């Protein structure tokens, strides 16, 4: 399959904003990279992200980079309906669920579950959030397949085996609980689970952070393989510029909850426009 982007984005996000706290009318004006803070001095609310607008094409990997606390996880958690955004809209191009033109943040909870189960895959920064560590690896995947409407036990087991094989988890460990697995293996099980429903949009939050380099390399190769073999749009969050250089053709730079720069990854790395991006790039070299 070719990753040549089709004309319609798989996902469009418009002015996504998430504010924690009581909020006042000035929260947004009072925060952001120009102020160097994401906490509103007037009311103490945290503006985790504000006015986030972007789109991702099918087959494309979009990188999101930014320092710790810049709002990266908040964006994907809102998109995965793990939390409710304060403002904003998101549109998914996926067939058959009647929500193509609807702002997915305005669906009812049953529709949201359906969108998540049928069209989204998520790999959490922390495997504890994405997996039930005491349920077997196969059981974790089965859970997602059941949610996506699979009913035949034999088929569920076959699909689980296939996904684990694809993510290089030895089949004989399918019936073992991920609690006993290494960090790298836990991430692989998360990836297998995220792929179970053949998602249109795959959300990947720091999937290699904290893993040793050789384990990281194999997971990154796995993501490359997924890019080649599926048409999923991927959002890849990382604070490692090496990861986006390897995997994503376009990148968004986040600072204090705002997009400060967006562009082709090689341009972001070689000709960064925003002062903060320049700092980020230069601190690597």
């Amino acid at each position, binding site marked *: *399959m*070719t*990753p*040549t*982007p089709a004309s319609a984005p798989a996902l469009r996000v418009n002015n996504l904003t998430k504010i924690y706290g009581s909020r006042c009318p000035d929260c947004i004006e009072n925060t952001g990279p120009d102020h160097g803070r994401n906490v509103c001095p007037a009311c103490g609310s945290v503006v985790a992200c504000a006015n986030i607008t972007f789109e991702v*094409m099918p087959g494309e990997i979009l990188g999101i980079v930014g320092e710790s606390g810049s709002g990266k996880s908040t964006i994907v958690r809102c998109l995965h309906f793990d939390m409710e955004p304060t403002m904003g809209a998101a549109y998914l191009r996926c067939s058959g669920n009647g929500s193509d033109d609807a702002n997915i943040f305005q669906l009812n909870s049953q529709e949201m579950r359906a969108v998540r189960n049928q069209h989204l895959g998520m790999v959490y920064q922390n495997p504890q959030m994405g997996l039930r560590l005491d349920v077997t690896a196969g059981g974790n995947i089965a859970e997602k397949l059941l949610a996506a409407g699979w009913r035949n036990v034999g088929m569920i087991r076959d699909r689980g085996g296939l996904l684990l094989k694809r993510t290089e988890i030895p089949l004989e460990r399918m019936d073992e609980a991920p609690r006993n697995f290494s960090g790298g293996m836990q991430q692989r099980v998360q990836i297998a689970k995220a792929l179970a429903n053949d998602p249109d949009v795959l959300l990947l939050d720091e999937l290699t952070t904290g893993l040793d380099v050789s384990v990281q*390399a194999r997971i990154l*190769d796995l993501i490359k393989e997924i890019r*080649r073999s599926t048409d999923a749009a991927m959002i890849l969050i990382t604070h490692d510029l090496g990861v986006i250089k*390897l995997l994503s*053709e*376009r990148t968004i730079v986040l600072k204090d909850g705002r997009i400060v720069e*967006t*562009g*082709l990854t*090689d*341009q972001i790395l*070689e*000709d960064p*426009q925003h002062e903060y991006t320049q700092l980020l790039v230069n601190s690597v070299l």
Partner: protein
Amino acid sequence: MHVLGGKKIKGFEDVSFSVKRGEFLAIIGSSGSGKSSLLKCMYRTYLADSGSMLYHGDSGSVIDLTTASDHEILAIRRNEVGYVSQLLQVVPRTIAVDVIAEPLLQRGIGIDDARDAASGYLARLRIPEDLWDAYPSTFSGGERQRVNIARALIRAPRLLLLDEPTSALDPASTAVVVGMLRGVNPGTTMIGIFHDLSVVRELADRVVVMKDNRMAGIGTPEEIL
């Protein structure tokens, strides 16, 4: 392709020229004169601060490379415009033949056919056969540079941007690469930075001279050299 009044602080300014379909334009000039910056602006690795660069597609479409959307740039990078960088890029954990085959895989060509085509380039570029399935990270500068060139040529780009593609090559390898560049499809437009003036004489239809971060002249090799 027209480049009009491109400008970049410290990079270069006041550069204007046009290149015809199938023409080979060489860029020469001293180190730091802005040659690579100019080429990178055409590939949009650098953003031009002012001016325009109009790329005329086959279909009669015209795209301003300085203002086109990122997705438009990605589409022409995938299908039409190739770039061979001055600094040798290697794809980690990928053997040489697959580094070269990758652009074909991206277009949906099967792995066996893609590897066959890639091996053909490795052979023509005289890379020893036992290196074909080795990792280019261990290659010499000249070997890597040839892998880079093969990776760009295999796409059969309409426009090929070359930043000192022969700088790390010995005279024999340079001759091979020059031969290959002369042999590419006559519809391919090439813009290349070279230090070796004998290579410029062999390849270029016209030459742009960069000096002190400005364009100092343009003409045929006979007029300029």
